[in-house]
């Protein structure tokens, strides 16, 4: 069977829409785990908070920037069949908190 391959670096910054077509946010951070010899994706983190988290910026809080948690999308909720247009398999409010 032919493998479905996706360039990871091109996913970054892509806007994600949910099943209702509503804009959810951009993919700005991705967590992964090592499983034996493999490395597998667990969650996609969306929104500016994901970027700040990735860059380790905490100082902005001092100047009154509200520190929000990034939107977490488990790997099985993101449909990558068209890597240029990633979308959720559910509605944004159905995501596990």
């Amino acid at each position, binding site marked *: 069977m032919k493998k479905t391959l*996706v*360039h*990871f*670096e091109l996913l970054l910054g892509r806007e994600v829409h949910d099943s209702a077509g509503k804009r959810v946010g951009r993919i700005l*951070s991705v967590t*992964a*785990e090592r499983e034996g010899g493999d490395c*597998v994706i*667990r969650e996609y983190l969306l929104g500016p908070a994901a970027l700040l988290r*990735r860059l380790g910026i905490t100082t902005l809080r001092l100047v009154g920037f509200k520190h929000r948690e990034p939107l977490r999308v488990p790997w099985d909720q993101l449909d990558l069949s068209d890597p240029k247009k990633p979308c959720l398999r559910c509605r944004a409010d159905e995501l596990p908190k």
Partner: protein
Amino acid sequence: MKTMDLVRDVLDKQVVDRDETKMGRVDGLLLEIRPGQPPRIEAIDMGFVVLARRIHPRLEAWLERLRRRFGVSSIRKTARYRVPWSAVKDVNPFCVQLDVAALDTPAFDWERWLRDHVVAHVPGVDS
């Protein structure tokens, strides 16, 4: 490191070989999408063409054409070098270590070519 942030801890990281010689950076990652299973990292992509793709797909196509047309045979492969994830020995905060010898890989084609064709001909360098 069990859990990691692929963007922060892997992408754009320094790649070193077995002897800790710097051999490039993680310019791109290839994901395999598997039905019913989480996506896994298939390979690490390195090289100029990969970087060009990140800037604009058209730049990648253009560079690729240029490379095919003018590439010296000994450095042709270097523009795109793909290492399977299984060759990764370690991912640490400092670098991504591969279980290969840099000199034997296409990532070092340019280095080798410059050494043999330019540096060796500079007076004062004993070859």
